[in-house]
């Protein structure tokens, strides 16, 4: 079996399971929308420009939805020893990791697809001609968060206190991608020239590449008991 096919199998299995159960989709979506509603009631956006706070609000919703998605996705693998069923298969174990990155990024992207238009209506802002750049920012940072999150979720999933350990390990490691995400989104929303946020985009791209490459190389060791 080819490597990419194994990656696709794991991701497709996750998506099919989620489409059937809809356990995760409802939780993620309502959580993200609740974040928007809470911030909308907390701040008076007739006085405060959304551009000032918007990036932070959006990424709070996306990142915490991502944590929920990761926890749920790996909880499914932990139950009934399913993760061992996959690790026993004659595939490169890192294919399981990349499959999880793909499915987590897709779950986050689904949330973003709903939350961004809702936030546009709620807070009355426009991406205008910067929409494609905004999509690039979302993709780069979502993949980065899914990459680091899937690695730590896999490492903690076989431990007894995995759910407790995941945020402890993940949040410090995710600080660079969270900073880059908020900063770049904020500059895009403010309509700043590309040169102002190109270094932040570079940071996100480098973070993605480093974490994906390191995780693929180290995943076998990370999962062994």
């Amino acid at each position, binding site marked *: 079996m080819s490597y990419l096919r194994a990656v696709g199998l794991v991701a497709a299995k996750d998506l099919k399971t989620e489409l059937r159960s809809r356990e995760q989709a409802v939780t993620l979506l309502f959580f993200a929308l609740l974040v928007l509603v809470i911030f909308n009631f907390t701040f008076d956006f007739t006085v405060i420009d959304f551009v000032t706070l918007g990036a932070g609000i959006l990424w709070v919703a996306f990142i915490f939805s991502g944590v929920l998605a990761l926890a749920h996705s790996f909880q499914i693998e932990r139950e*009934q020893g399913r993760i*061992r069923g996959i690790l026993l298969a004659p595939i490169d174990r890192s294919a399981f990791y990349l499959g999880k990155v793909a499915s987590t990024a897709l779950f986050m992207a689904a949330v973003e697809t709903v939350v961004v238009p809702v936030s546009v209506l709620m807070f009355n802002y426009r991406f205008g001609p910067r929409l494609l750049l905004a999509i690039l920012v979302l993709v780069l940072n979502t993949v980065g968060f899914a990459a680091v999150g899937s690695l730590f979720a896999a490492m903690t999933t076989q431990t007894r206190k995995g759910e407790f350990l995941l945020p402890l390990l993940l949040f410090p490691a995710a600080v660079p991608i969270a900073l880059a995400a908020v900063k770049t989104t904020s500059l895009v929303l403010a309509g700043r020239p590309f040169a102002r946020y190109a270094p932040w985009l570079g940071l996100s791209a480098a973070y993605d590449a480093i974490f994906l490459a390191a995780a693929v190389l180290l995943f076998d060791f990370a999962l062994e008991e």
Partner: protein
Amino acid sequence: MSAAALQACALRKRYGPVAAIDGIDLAIPRGQFVALFGPNGAGKSTLLGMFATLVRPSSGSVRIHGEDPRQADRPALMRRIGVLSHETFLYDHLTGLENLVFYARLYGLPDPPGAAREALRAAGLEDRRSDQVRGYSRGMQQRLAIARALLHAPDILLLDEPFAGLDRDAADGLRDRLLTARRAGATCVLATHDFATALPVADRVVVLVSGRIAAERSARGLDEAAFDALLRSTTLDRPEAREAAR
């Protein structure tokens, strides 16, 4: 002489200060069916985990068909190993057929849907193939789990308490499948507490205590009294430990 199917040499596994496996030397010839007894915490599951390459030894080595799994062609080796435990490895929201097709694809079988249908037929679950697994009874789930474990026709079977929670019919069905695998020449290691279930299929009995082999002998001629005597010969001579091992 051909290499043993499974071999442990001076095998140790420590979790912090606790020695889960404490210096095990064991060679299991091809085609042999070994029943592994021992109280909870004796190291049975850890030993099976190391044979399955899921648990990394702290020291010593494991060989599978004479090969060190760390240096061997891992996919080729894993195609020869099937693992069955009281956990099913099955996805509740996928149907029985989808679960088996998923695993058949992971194992690179040539015709995954065909192999999955055949396995479902052998498990007597063909008429439930389109139902999600969450609607299956415990016995049906375990039959499907057996089908999953045997899907790729492994010649080594590692069985960790597979009879746990099964009713009599399901246990009989599992025993029949194990006997069939044994007749086909599979090497099996069965970790269990259940003397009565394990003995009819076992060639050899190994008793683990505190991560060490406390006793071992052929299963031939081993009845309940002889099994009790075997346990008494180990440090399992306390009644509660003996009961746990059984």
